């Protein structure tokens, strides 16, 4: 098996490497990928179309809005799948599940506890900055969402899963994940109701007086990114919580 695998890998790699001369050179500004009219259009017209300096965010949330919306749905489905695979509902008949014993001092380490108490608010604030400032500096919904989710995961690692789940219970994060997708598609439906194509934000300027179509695109991108961030942060925490506790959402690592 090892030899068959090695031969297959070497054959594939050799085939790719033998065509190396046909690849564009490193840093070639006129390679097919870089000189394509699509990329050139994004670079030249983003500011005209939406007034957003960060082209990556503009392409992500506006030009390729469908892609990002369904990417968010994929993340949501992955989270639901993990819960469906792992989650065990060990409900004792008669209600009143014995509350998980969380001994004080169990996970309590003074250095770790203090560091996390100082670090987590800063982390969450930074996540909000990354989300909200995503179209002017590097950032956006996915990045900020992951940082926000990481702050909850840090709580779970440092203080145990139960305190983290007290702050963000299962019901809340499932709702949060769905709310993100609803926000995103809600922007699309609003455009439909106003007589434009799905996710064509330009028409939304009639809802906010005093701005033009380009500014409406910029603000809608922020709204859409917030939706993405909700889903991503909730699902990141859901993945950790379910994997770390074998689906029981108790005890943790």
């Amino acid at each position, binding site marked *: *098996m*090892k030899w*068959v*695998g*090695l031969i*297959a*890998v*070497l054959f*594939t*790699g050799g085939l*790719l*490497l033998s065509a*190396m*001369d046909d*690849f*564009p*050179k*490193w*840093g070639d*500004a006129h*390679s097919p*990928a*870089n000189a394509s009219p699509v*990329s*050139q259009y*994004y*670079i*030249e017209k*983003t*500011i*005209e179309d939406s*007034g957003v*300096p*960060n*082209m*990556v965010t503009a*392409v*992500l949330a506006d030009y390729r809005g469908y*892609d*990002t919306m369904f*990417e968010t749905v*994929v*993340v949501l489905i*992955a*989270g639901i*799948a*993990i819960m469906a*695979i*792992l989650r065990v509902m060990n409900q004792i008949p008669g209600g009143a599940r014995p509350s998980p014993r969380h001994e004080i001092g169990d996970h309590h380490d003074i250095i770790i506890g203090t560091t996390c108490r100082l670090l987590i608010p800063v982390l969450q604030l930074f996540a909000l900055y990354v989300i909200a400032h995503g179209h*002017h*500096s*590097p950032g*956006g919904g*996915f*990045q900020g969402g*992951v940082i926000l989710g990481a702050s909850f995961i840090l709580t779970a690692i440092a203080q145990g899963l139960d305190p983290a789940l007290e702050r963000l219970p299962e019901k809340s994060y499932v709702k949060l994940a769905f709310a993100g997708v609803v926000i995103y598609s809600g922007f699309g439906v609003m455009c439909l109701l106003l007589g434009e194509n799905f996710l064509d934000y330009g028409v939304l300027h009639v809802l906010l007086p005093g701005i033009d179509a380009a500014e409406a695109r910029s603000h809608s991108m922020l709204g859409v990114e917030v939706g993405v961030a909700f889903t991503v942060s909730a*699902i*990141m925490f859901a993945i950790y919580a379910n*994997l770390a506790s*074998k689906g029981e959402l108790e005890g943790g690592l």
Partner: protein
Amino acid sequence: MGEIFKQYVIDHFNFWIAVILMMIGLYAMITKNNLIKKLIGMSIFQTAIILFYVSAGVKDGATIPILEHHAVEVEQVEMLAAAAGHSPSEHAASGHESHAINPDDYSNPLPHVLMLTAIVVGVATLGVALAVSQVIYKNYGTLEESEILAKIKAAENDG
């Protein structure tokens, strides 16, 4: 010899790294017996693809695909001027040439966008894979592929 080396390796070193990483990942996925090691191989493979795309968008001497605020303001002032009805000839003469956005100055944003979503979806699929392997471990008590197959075969023979 040196010329060929430069032509094949130095000019394309990013693709060499991507292909080598891809080979490592593929080898791990095919030959490793442990499911977690297979997943590690999958992640390495994924990293190779991400590196391939992002490095294809690099341009020599270009900066990140974010316009400077200064350039934005100049652009907006020009748009206002154009809207206010300045004559086009004056507009062109007043330095539109020097302030126009040159695509060669900014690296290609498209691969960045594609890989941004690919990274997050990669994390999500990795989570699903880990969940599945956790269930496999619960049912078979092992993550070694050969042992799992032997147990399945034994169960079939019994039943």
